[in-house]
């Protein structure tokens, strides 16, 4: 078991390096000259050259063999854009924002709390409602009630999240004045974004959890339980729910990083100063270091969440002994 945990921990290293490589590849290779992009459309060649020097874009991308051959020390080969970035991110130093010149690590720390204020309630409400409805679906499986829920959830999934936000904000905040339109001052400001978030997401999660529950319903142990004379209710809550805990757990833990990245659109529509809005603003203003840091951090948290899931598996299900 310990050996498994250690081996599983070690897999985090190549994945994290890979993520950094991927983000690096997107921002420094696919998109062409990063200095020209940062300098903007009407920049002079001198300005571009200056930015290139300032951010070290003039260095080789991966390995500085020239420098290593000249100085004769193998360490100099790592004096390149990529390894410089690895060093920086290992120290959680993401540089400064181009727009506000603030430290990005500082901005991230400031944005986490507002983001969590929105996404945590959405997550919890959606999870409990979806599981409750999924149990109802499993209870009435194959009947009209179950089919209605399925159709309604597919219908709900087929509408763009943006439309939910725009309509919700227009009707309930602007026309009916039940909620404040914009801002982040008191819990009242969170009610509408949370409600919209739950409604926009419930269709997808209901369908997901229903599939999980129904998969369990057709297992042998359920038939055995019924044969023993257990009631529907007993089977559902004692047998099915417990066994469904594993796929549910996967989904829950994997959703956690998205709590951190926040809801991009909800935050910018309702003026919540969280990470989602920070990301949207960074895209609008071309603030590349901020984007870079957001993507990287989001991925690292995802990697960690995956690790936690795998470790929780061994705890939740004694049958699992992964190689």
């Amino acid at each position, binding site marked *: 078991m310990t050996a498994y945990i250690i081996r599983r921990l070690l897999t985090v290293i*190549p*994945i994290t390096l*890979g*993520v950094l*490589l*991927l*983000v690096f590849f*997107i*921002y420094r290779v*696919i*998109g*062409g000259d990063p200095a020209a*992009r940062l300098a903007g459309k009407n920049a002079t060649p001198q300005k571009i050259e200056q930015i290139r020097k300032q951010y070290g874009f003039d260095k080789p991308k991966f390995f500085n063999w020239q420098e290593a051959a000249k100085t004769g020390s193998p360490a100099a080969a790592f004096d390149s854009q990529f390894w410089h970035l690895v060093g920086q991110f290992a120290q959680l130093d993401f540089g400064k924002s181009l727009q506000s010149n603030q430290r990005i690590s500082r901005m991230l720390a400031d944005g986490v709390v507002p983001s969590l204020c929105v996404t945590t309630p959405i997550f919890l409400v959606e999870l409990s409602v979806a599981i409750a409805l999924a149990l109802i679906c499993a209870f009435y499986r194959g009947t009209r009630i179950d089919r209605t829920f399925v*159709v309604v959830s*597919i*219908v709900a*999934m*087929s*509408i*763009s*999240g*943006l*439309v939910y936000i*725009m*309509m919700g904000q*227009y009707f309930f905040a*602007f026309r009916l004045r039940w909620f404040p339109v914009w801002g982040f001052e008191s819990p009242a400001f969170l009610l509408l974004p949370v409600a919209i978030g739950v409604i*926009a*997401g419930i*269709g*997808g*999660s209901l*369908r*997901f959890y229903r*599939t999980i529950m129904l998969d369990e319903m057709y297992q042998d142990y359920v038939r055995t339980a019924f044969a023993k004379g257990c009631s529907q209710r007993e089977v559902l809550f004692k047998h099915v729910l417990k066994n469904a805990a594993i796929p549910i757990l996967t989904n829950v833990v994997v959703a956690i*990083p*998205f709590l951190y*990245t926040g*809801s*991009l*659109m909800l935050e910018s529509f309702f003026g919540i100063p969280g990470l989602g809005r920070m*990301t*949207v603003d960074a*895209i*609008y203003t071309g603030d590349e270091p901020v*984007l870079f840091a*957001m*993507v990287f951090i*989001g*991925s690292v948290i*995802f*990697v960690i969440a*995956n690790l936690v899931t795998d470790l929780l598996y061994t705890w939740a299900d004694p049958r699992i002994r992964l190689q």
Partner: protein
Amino acid sequence: MTATAANSAALAAKPQTLWSTAWRQFRRNRLAAACLWIIVIYVGIWLYAESVYWTAYLRDVVPSYKVTDFDARNAAPSLRHWLGTDFTGRDNVAQLIQGVRIAFEIAILSSAILIPLGFLLGALAGYFGRWVDNAIIWLYSVVDSVPSILSIISISYVVGRGMKGIVIGMGLVAWVGLCRLIRGEYLKHKQRAYVAAARALGAGHLTVMLRHIAPNVLHIVIITFTLLFPRFILTEVILSYLGVGIANEPSWGVMINDAKQRLWLGVWWELGGATAAMFFLVLALNIVGDALRDALDPKLKTAEGSAT
């Protein structure tokens, strides 16, 4: 899908094949059959929109959906403009029809990147195993670790606003699901007797991989495409909102975003029209995709969940 229909008609006289049984299974689902008709109608609209676009392009004139009319700005629905006009007086219905074209183009071009990529990598990983498998698993775990919306945004952002950025972004991110499924299938099929027989008869690895196994897993490509299509449409809306979407052409995402400010003035027809046009296609694709999966491969575990 129409190819499936033609296939199954031709094969009806023969013993049951995967496609003929699947088609019979599919037809039993009345809702899905109705949704298939909706998709057929959308395909018709798409072809019409392409013809409008290309005739205007070849004649080098301003296409009808781009003709502005400043006297009729934000006009309400009327007989002349069924869904009113937008802020420069362009007819909303004409723009929605072009939105169908953009949606199909995005889906098809993105798939042209992701299907070969996902299929080939999945096949290589599943068929050869060992270090090839390890390398490809590493690759897709890495791509999968970056929240997909963030990586699509990043790619579209660096490539630049427009169709190219969206297509490359989605194509380079969405292949992971297909790759996983194909890899699993190849792992299974590698053990089958027909593969051993083909090898024994002297077929090379590539022949076995692409000529013998590939036809048996091709249905997964169709299922994946149908289930990914609605997600492309919904993602396009988000990208348009973030300012990295389509430029200079009326896509549904662009229309919804343009409608954003005017909704507050009571101009609802632009938003309503775009939402409805999108809704029916996404709904039909979702239902048909589910039914296709149930008919072709009921045990397949595809990633489910919303795009946002």
